[in-house]
């Protein structure tokens, strides 16, 4: 399913209900309704009519309207389907790693109802025809909504601006330079300045390319003992600081894709205080893992930006609780054994994460560090608003994109059972708590947990 940015001025408000008799109706009863957009966390029920939410609230907890199919949620959490704003897919160009179809099944199994796919493909998504291609392939093959992040520069080379205006009109929800920072300050300034005229959002990976060249992990004692070349978090902070000066100059919209340390958050905090249209994100990996997990050269923990120290991770979790992290992504990045089963420095970066995003995040809830709403807001309503996507909110007239999950059910991740075509999960063999039971996209169930009969 292709999710394009709404072109009207009502962007982000979602389709208004057009309840018609005859549409299929499903009532989700006995649910714990959790909606980060409003802070709702109460027992109740929700009625889906066609592809939209028709009604919800405590009055639907036990009684379904006549003629509706009934799903007994057994007290489990019913929340807006997750929106994952950074997903790398191998289509086109590396279908052996992941296709839009396999990524969408992985998403559905993880309770993710919208994926934003990154432009780092072969060829790079830097032309209107390629945005079109993604949307057609997604419409025909994907079981969740797919939105396209287009390249900010041609070929992601960081040299020439891509056709930002036309790409946006074709449906690109934001613009990114993929896994690389735009090193040339002049190009970055021009991209921001030009994007502003179209209201286009620039999503930037902040890592100084010179400091991070050939770096295999975070610099520090662990890297030194392992004899690996490291990159300091300073590489992240200084690109971020540069960018925010340019944002101040150009007054454009900017989102820092993955920040990993408290110093970066401080920079963003100051920029927000100056009234800039700045937001920031992090990845689930940087909230739940640290550099020590690399242990004896485990390449599934090799990623960019690299996993940082435990002190940094804790600071990131505190910032999440304080509402300073706008978006959490899985940064799902499928890599096959050929490129991962190598000496650490030579192995590919990246980790799959769509299927473990929610359960890994629930570690923070079970640990008492954040509330469920604090965890879910950066995966639902926040990315919906920032990227102008429908969904992300439990309310009448909104799309029936839903996730039903048991927040307590324990399970052990087995990479061979992941739906993703690549198995490079840093959570392989991890004990997680919280299991997606059902995923609904536009009113249709696209995933149902087979382990336990729930309906």
């Amino acid at each position, binding site marked *: 399913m292709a999710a394009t940015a709404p072109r009207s001025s009502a962007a982000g408000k979602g389709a208004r209900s057009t309840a018609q008799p005859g549409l299929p109706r499903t009532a989700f009863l006995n649910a714990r309704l959790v909606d980060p957009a409003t802070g709702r966390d109460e027992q109740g029920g929700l009625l889906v009519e066609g592809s939209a939410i028709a009604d919800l609230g405590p009055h639907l907890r036990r009684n379904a309207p006549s003629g509706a199919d009934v799903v007994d949620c057994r007290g489990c959490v019913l929340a807006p389907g997750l929106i994952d704003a950074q997903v790398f897919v191998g289509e086109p160009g590396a279908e052996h790693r992941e296709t839009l179809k396999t990524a969408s099944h992985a998403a559905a199994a993880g309770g993710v109802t919208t994926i934003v796919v990154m432009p780092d493909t072969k060829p790079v998504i830097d032309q209107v025809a390629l945005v079109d291609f993604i949307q057609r392939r997604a419409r025909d093959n994907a079981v969740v909504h797919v939105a396209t992040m287009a390249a900010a520069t041609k070929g992601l080379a960081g040299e020439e601006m891509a056709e930002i205006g036309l790409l946006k009109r074709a449906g690109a929800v934001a613009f990114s330079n993929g896994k690389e920072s735009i090193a040339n300050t002049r190009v970055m300034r021009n991209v921001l300045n030009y994007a502003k005229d179209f209201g286009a959002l620039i999503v930037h990976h902040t890592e100084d390319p010179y400091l991070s060249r050939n770096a295999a992990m975070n610099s520090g004692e662990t890297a*030194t003992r392992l004899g690996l070349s490291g990159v300091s978090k300073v590489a992240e902070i200084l690109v971020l600081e540069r960018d925010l000066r340019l944002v101040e100059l150009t007054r454009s919209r900017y989102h820092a894709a993955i920040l990993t340390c408290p110093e970066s958050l401080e920079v963003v905090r100051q920029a927000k205080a100056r009234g800039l249209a700045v937001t920031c994100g992090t990845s689930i990996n940087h909230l739940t893992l640290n550099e020590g997990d690399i242990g004896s050269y485990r390449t599934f923990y090799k990623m960019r930006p690299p996993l940082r120290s435990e002190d940094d991770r804790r600071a990131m979790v505190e910032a999440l609780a304080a509402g300073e992290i706008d978006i959490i992504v899985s940064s799902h990045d499928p890599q096959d054994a050929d490129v991962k089963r190598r000496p650490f420095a030579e192995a590919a970066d990246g980790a799959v994460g769509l299927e473990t995003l929610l359960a890994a995040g629930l570690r923070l809830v079970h640990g008492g560090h954040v509330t469920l709403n604090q965890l879910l807001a950066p995966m639902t309503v926040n990315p919906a608003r920032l990227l102008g996507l429908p969904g992300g909110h439990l309310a009448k007239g909104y799309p029936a994109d839903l996730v039903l999950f048991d927040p307590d059910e324990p399970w052990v991740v087995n990479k061979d059972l992941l739906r993703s075509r690549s198995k490079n999960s840093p959570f392989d063999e991890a004990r997680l708590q919280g299991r997606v039971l059902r995923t609904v996209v536009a009113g249709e169930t696209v995933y149902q947990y087979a382990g336990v009969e729930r309906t």
Partner: protein
Amino acid sequence: MKTSVAKSPRFTHRHLLSCEQLSAPDIEHLLDIADKAADSNRSKNRKTDVLAGRSLINLFFEASTRTQASFEMAAKRLGADVLNMNVSTSSVQKGETLVDTAVTLNAMRPDIIVVRHHSAGAVALLSQKVDCSVVNAGDGAHQHPTQALLDALTIRRAKGRVGGLTVAICGDILHSRVARSNITLLNTLGANVRIVAPSTLLPAAADRLGAEVFTDMRDGISGADVVMMLRLQNERMEGSFVPSTREFFHFFGLDQEKLGLAKPDALIMHPGPMNRGVEIASTVADHSRSVIREQVEMGVAVRMAVLEALASNLPS
């Protein structure tokens, strides 16, 4: 000569990958065997059949003359069959992955594989895919355990002990597996370790490794019992770490004048190959207190000890 190896109760490792795996008794045990091997190497009847019928593969992904020759000499003195894998003519150049190479070699049923690789952790990765023993002969900037063992043996023979001595390791610490191996091993044996380098050649968190850090060489080698120079590894330089070899020699090269700050009987060491006039003056390299040639000699003895200890744990 001894013709069979007694099962060693004190050395239980299947591989030798890092100095971090070695306890003080492990090290002393290896040095004791090596000490005897060193003596026997100086005699006429120096060949034994401790490894008779065993086969050893020298798998060097990174060019090395002395380490490969040293392992070959050690293995042959013990009666093993040695196969040197020349990487420039091997299938690795044709795109075979390290893991595939490991699986292929494993199928030939060697008893020991000695590996050098340019990437940290590569030898450990290979060791997970084979049934035989693996010796790390250097992996990237990570470890080179037999070098640290031969250095310890050289020091022990010259000074009678290692514990309590002050050892200053000087030069390119950042890229050096020799430095990392020695910091670990010398600490295990109770030496006081110093590292001396310009800040650009010190790794992150250098002060967390168990060594005192100096950026002024004169301070760093003051009162040292051992001055261990490292090769300035031009082939690993990717940025501008030092302005020139001339400036480096001026501030960090070991010359007669700086040597005067160390103890009068301080040992001069270098793992080789030396850049004369870059990290060490020729007159110092050839000084009467220089044990650089002994290091090479002890290299064969230590490698014999390592191979013998590992072989004692191999199935017969």
